[in-house]
């Protein structure tokens, strides 16, 4: 650490800008990496804490476990019922003993809600012996989750009747231990997979950062290379010194990045996913992962520095005098367009394919955009350079042709936002199609043979609770089943009805259409949250990348710029060119991807023709993003003045 400070302090002004930038890049990279790893850990931790609710059958088990999903005020309550079926039944996580019949354990959020709502709307559903116990966090997927564990006798009808087994319910099953992994068909598993894909997408720009940071370090070293070689340093010395500097700077950056992440975790836990927020510990991966980040990032930066330096050592002018870059192949454009068309076509079938596939295809469309981006920037560069009448256009165009990937990195954030915003302008997840969100009726599905008895039972219960309601029987798609529906008069309270009917059909819960689509609604909300997170990360990446790109391009050309200034070139010409080389692609790509997003979103266009949510998102992010990228480009302005100040640019 002390060595690092000495190295940083010993550096002169322009070197310090470079070092600070490397530090900032590594810091942002580390924080984002921690976020990516932390998010995966968080989804895994949730899945692990949810696993015990999925009974894993064992014919010789000592307990019977069943699960169902109840609802209150439109929020799901997970209800787990347990009965003893032998000696030493397993104690569930978050509890201290196995529940005796009539004993209830509730999560803190459910306890609070039970206290606030009238007993005939919630508490009476879980009536039992004595006061309810409190479930510990180990039993909860997220802190304010609504969970109830009910102890029953093994002979209780609720512990013998089969249930409609789906995502929210499990028939009574003999178990000897609680499951520690969720079934592969569960939502949790799907989310962990998506989180891993997101992590991969986030780590790729981080590798690019690492390389860019190392390149900066190498470029700064390059200035001193000649001097070092003159005083007798061998290439080996130079490599060792550079790598040491890169690693020490990176280590500092990692420490700052971890601090930034630590400061960011409390607000990050409030990001709602799958209907709930997060435990602080969820977002902190285990010590092994932490050690991996602390050791891995500096090593990665060091390794990229070696690669970056090889060119410098091989040719001292290697950094500044690049050769004609190979043209990017038009194949890229073809592949990208194919991906975008595939997405558009598939999106038409979104209803059949399901949200998961649509998200995956959206990811592919992003990928296509990333393939297309550098190619388009190169084409823009050739057009700008080809049609330029003055120096500004010529310089900007040639720079774009020279390194289209660098410019793409800078504007890709905006382009991705344009795409997502264009997409969301038509596709507003908050109002998904065909979703019945009615709350004027409650239904249940039973065997056709039982329909009459159940309907009568229901009427009797409602009468006793003094609830005025109409009860109807209707057909459902499956042949030997019918639906029994309760229509409360005057829009009566559905939670009162539900409470009055608790246990009418053991293990089954009356649900409104809104309850039934709540899972889907949550999914769409999560898509919206997920895209917002991706947008914010894209912007962070775009800002830092714009800063790195503009500073390293000034450092790469510092001598040429300084000599141009000596020869009487006004720096304002250089400034204008540098601004134009960002703004032209920004406008073209931002507009282009907005159009691409609109086209892709067209098949999914929902209720309203244009969603105000999408438009607001587009407006605010594009304005903020453009200002941000321009601001990040302008950080190199003082650097440009600084590096061209000295009247006698030394051979470095």
């Amino acid at each position: 650490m002390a060595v690092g400070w000495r190295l940083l302090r010993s550096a002169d002004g322009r070197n310090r800008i470079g070092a600070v930038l490397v530090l900032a890049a590594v810091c942002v990279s580390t924080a984002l990496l921690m976020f990516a790893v932390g998010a995966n850990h968080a989804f895994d931790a949730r899945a692990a804490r949810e696993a015990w609710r999925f009974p894993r059958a064992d014919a010789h088990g000592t307990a019977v476990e069943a699960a169902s999903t109840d609802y209150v005020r439109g929020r799901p309550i997970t209800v787990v019922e347990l009965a003893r079926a032998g000696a030493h039944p397993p104690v569930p996580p978050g509890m201290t003993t196995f529940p005796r019949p009539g004993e209830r354990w509730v999560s803190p959020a459910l306890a609070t809600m039970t206290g606030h709502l009238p007993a005939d709307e919630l508490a009476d559903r879980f009536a039992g012996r004595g006061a309810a116990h409190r479930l510990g966090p180990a039993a909860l997927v997220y802190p304010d989750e609504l969970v109830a564990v009910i102890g029953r006798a093994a002979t209780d009808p609720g512990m013998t009747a089969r249930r409609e087994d789906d995502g929210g319910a499990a028939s009574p099953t003999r178990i000897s231990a609680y499951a520690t992994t969720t079934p592969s068909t569960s939502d949790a598993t799907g989310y962990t997979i998506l989180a891993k894909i997101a992590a991969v997408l986030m780590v790729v720009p981080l590798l690019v950062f690492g390389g860019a940071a190392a390149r900066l370090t190498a470029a700064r070293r390059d200035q001193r290379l000649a001097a070092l070689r003159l005083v007798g340093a061998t290439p080996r010395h130079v490599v060792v010194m550079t790598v040491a500097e890169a690693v020490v700077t990176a280590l500092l950056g990692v420490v700052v990045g971890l601090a930034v992440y630590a400061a960011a975790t409390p607000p990050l836990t409030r990001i709602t996913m799958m209907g709930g927020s997060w435990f602080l510990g969820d977002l902190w991966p285990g010590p092994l992962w932490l050690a991996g980040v602390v050791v891995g990032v500096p090593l990665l930066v060091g390794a990229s520095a070696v690669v970056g330096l090889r060119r410098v050592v091989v040719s001292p002018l290697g950094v500044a005098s690049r050769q004609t870059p190979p043209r990017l192949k038009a194949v890229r454009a073809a592949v990208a367009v194919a991906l975008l068309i595939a997405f558009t076509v598939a999106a038409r079938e979104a209803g059949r394919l399901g949200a998961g596939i649509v998200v995956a295809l959206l990811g592919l469309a992003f990928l296509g955009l990333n393939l297309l981006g550098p190619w388009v920037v190169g084409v823009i560069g050739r057009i700008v350079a080809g049609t330029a009448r003055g120096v500004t256009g010529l310089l900007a165009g040639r720079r774009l042709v020279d390194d289209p990937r660098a410019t793409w990195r800078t504007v890709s954030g905006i382009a991705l936002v344009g795409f997502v915003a264009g997409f969301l302008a038509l596709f507003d997840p908050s109002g998904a199609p065909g979703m019945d969100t009615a709350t004027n009726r409650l239904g249940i599905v039973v065997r056709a043979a039982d329909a009459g008895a159940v309907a009568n039972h229901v009427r009797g219960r409602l009468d006793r609770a003094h609830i005025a309601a109409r009860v109807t029987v209707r057909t459902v798609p499956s042949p030997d089943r019918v639906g029994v529906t309760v229509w409360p008069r005057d829009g009566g309270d559905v939670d009162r009805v539900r409470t009055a009917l608790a246990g009418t059909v053991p293990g089954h819960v009356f649900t409104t259409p809104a309850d039934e689509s709540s899972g889907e609604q949550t999914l769409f909300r999560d898509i919206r949250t997920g895209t917002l997170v991706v947008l914010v990360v894209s912007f962070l990446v775009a800002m830092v990348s714009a800063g790195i790109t503009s500073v390293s391009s000034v450092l790469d050309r510092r001598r040429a710029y300084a000599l141009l200034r000596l020869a009487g070139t006004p720096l304002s010409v250089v400034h204008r060119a540098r601004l134009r080389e960002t703004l032209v692609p920004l406008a073209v790509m931002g507009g282009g991807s907005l159009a691409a997003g609109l086209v892709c979103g067209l098949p999914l266009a929902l209720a309203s023709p244009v969603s105000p949510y999408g438009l607001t998102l587009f407006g605010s992010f594009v304005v903020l993003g453009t200002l941000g990228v321009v601001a990040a480009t302008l950080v190199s302005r003082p650097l440009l003045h600084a590096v061209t100040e000295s009247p006698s640019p030394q051979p470095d």
Partner: protein
Amino acid sequence: MTVDASSPVLDCRGLVKSFGPTRALAGVGFAVHAGEAAAVMGPSGSGKSTLLHCAAGILRPDAGEVRLHGERIDELNEERRSALRRTAFGFVFQFGQLLPELPADENVAMPLLLDGVGRADAVARARAWFGPLGIGGLERRRPGELSGGQGQRVAIARALVARPAVVFADEPTGSLDQATGQETMAVLVDASRRGGAALVVVTHDAQVARWCDRVVEMRDGMVVREWHAPAREPVRA
């Protein structure tokens, strides 16, 4: 004003320049005539570059005066001096003066473009220099694809393309090997003469100074000796 053939293009008198406690120039007089090539020689740190910077309007001397065609230029503001450097002077430095992303011809055309010459015209005028300087065919190469000697010839073309009155070269052969350095000097001296520009070459190398008509030797910020170079064989481009 009319320019008398016998009066110097560039005339510096009594130049003094200090950097903090360091007195880089301690009263230097220096002049160069049209078509003349003058070398400024001396050990490292003797003030050669500082003299060049003051003469070219890059630095303002603490005392003394600099005249171009008889007009004071040291008293102009930075903007005017910058414009003057762009139009009346050309520069060749040791290395690294070419922008890496521009092809050679566009690098050469830069001064013309900055001066408002149309692009097609500027590039055409720039290309006209490549053949005579022995780098014909390299017009579309990037600086990174040129050898050191070729790069310096491109730099010479850029220094001369706007038809300057004076070309300043600071250690133009400093990063070249002996043979390439000699060739480059030959090209520089010859092209400047044909372009009608006076040439000022700063160097610490007597082999390089040999190419000039006149040599000024500096030490500790002062001119200690001045002599006319012995006749040399005619230069081939």
